[in-house]
């Protein structure tokens, strides 16, 4: 499959008074046509900044974003976190009408009608959007984003504030849109269940760099928290204090728990083989979100 959007060695730093914070560090990735990709990582790891750079809202300090075909530039639409990005003192339909003129959409009435039906917004489209529930607001935000059909839809924390039923509906809506319009979708989310059920590939971002890329079903491995019982623990060789993680030593057994978003725990997990430890038991606690 061909890439419709390529990011090549993008770097970005924010400067606030005298502090300079490197947010993205040599990030490279490719978004393929008709793909669904997820990005996960701890807060402040640069996920939203990456989306903003992809959508052209922020310019990178170095590196480039390449839109694949030369004939027509890839259209990228970013749907930012939460229920913002429309006018609360207008109804849903008035918002759609306003943005369709702003985006210069031809045959906007038909387009609005299609979206209202597709996103099941008929019941509330003529109400003031300030009175909408989070789910309704999310639908309206998506509808505005799809007024002019993008090639790539970027979603930042789309499940924030939604209950499980609404998340299921959102997945179903996004899947329908993906199939109907062949959209490439890139979603940033802390909800690993959503990532697992909706995306195909997942990128792990940490400290401004893409750490790894996995298939979304492998996300199970990154559930948190993890409980481990390790054998062959040799106190002389490895001291648990050096990893600063909660642990309990019983003879040659070492019990530890933590989550893989925690850097200390992550480092500890990476060193298990090197230290000659063997995993006796591993349990992933159920999702607690």
């Amino acid at each position, binding site marked *: 499959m061909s890439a419709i959007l390529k990011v090549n060695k993008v770097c970005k730093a924010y400067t606030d008074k005298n502090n300079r914070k490197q947010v993205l560090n040599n990030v490279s990735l490719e978004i393929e046509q008709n793909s669904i990709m997820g990005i996960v990582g701890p807060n402040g790891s640069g996920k939203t900044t990456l989306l903003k750079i992809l959508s052209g809202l*922020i310019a990178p300090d170095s590196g480039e974003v390449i839109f694949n075909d030369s004939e027509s530039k890839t259209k990228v639409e970013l749907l930012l976190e*939460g229920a913002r*990005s429309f006018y609360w*003192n207008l109804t849903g339909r008035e918002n759609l009408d306003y943005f369709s003129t702003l985006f210069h959409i031809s045959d906007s009435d038909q387009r609005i009608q299609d979206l209202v039906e597709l996103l099941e917004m008929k019941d509330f489209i003529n109400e003031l959007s300030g009175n909408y529930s989070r789910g309704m607001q999310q639908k309206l935000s998506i509808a505005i984003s799809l007024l002019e059909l993008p090639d790539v839809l970027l979603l930042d924390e789309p499940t924030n504030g939604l209950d499980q039923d609404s998340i299921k509906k959102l997945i179903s809506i996004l899947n329908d849109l993906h199939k109907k319009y062949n959209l490439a979708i890139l979603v940033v989310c802390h909800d690993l269940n959503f990532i697992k059920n909706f995306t195909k590939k997942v990128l792990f971002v940490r400290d401004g760099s893409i750490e790894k890329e996995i298939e979304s079903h492998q996300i199970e491995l990154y559930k948190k928290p993890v409980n481990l019982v390790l054998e062959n623990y040799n106190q002389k060789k490895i001291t648990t204090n050096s990893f600063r993680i909660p642990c309990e030593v019983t003879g040659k057994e070492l019990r530890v728990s933590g989550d893989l978003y925690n850097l200390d725990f992550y480092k500890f997990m990476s060193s298990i083989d090197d230290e000659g430890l063997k995993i006796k038991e591993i349990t992933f606690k159920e999702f607690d979100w």
Partner: protein
Amino acid sequence: MYAILLTMNEVKKTYRINLHYPVAFFSNIINNLIFIAVILLIFSTIFDISNAFTAVLWPFILAVSASGSDSVQSDMQLGTLERIVGRNKQFQQLLLARMMASGLFSFPLVLVFFFLLYSKIDSEVNSIMGLMLILIPLTISSLGLGYLLSAITLYFKEIGSFPNLIMMALLAATMFDWSSINHTFLYILNAVLPFLSIKSFLLEGDKVFLYVSYFNSVLILLIGVIAFNKILFYTKKNRGFGRY
């Protein structure tokens, strides 16, 4: 064509918001009427008619100049600015449409007071054509100021009532009696300060001031547009268009 479409879109949006919130709409109109009437009364009794006339044009100037920065500020808070800038590459054009739409809403008030003062103005402005003659540089200056204030809003994110303060200071500068100062300096002031040359034209009827007002308005518009584009580029290069 797209510019007209954008302006009408903004007019429609404002009209719809006013329909949803009629109390706010009518109290704003009544406030404006009282404000103008008081200013008119004060200026026509204490000062000369040219000052009074400039004063009644002020709501129009204020509506055009402040609406740009107001919209940038409220869009930033709502999060709509990121959606608009992300998709609409002609943000500058949209801002122009917003300022024009705001001007259109306050224009009827200007017309009402123009006809009230019609007979009292002893200059070339006492006709619709005359009004148009001064409305053109007035509008261009207001747009330039609007871009400048929007640039300041983009840069500082939260500026509160700063645009109103600037406009009040400009009103005071326009109303001030500069006649005692050196003539060369007066011409420089007229060329640099927005709106002053329009008042000078109304006061003295000297067409040179009218030409100066055209020069002055184009200068302000140029400064405003350049500053706005620079800040737009800077914002894109730095923190972005979010509130923080």
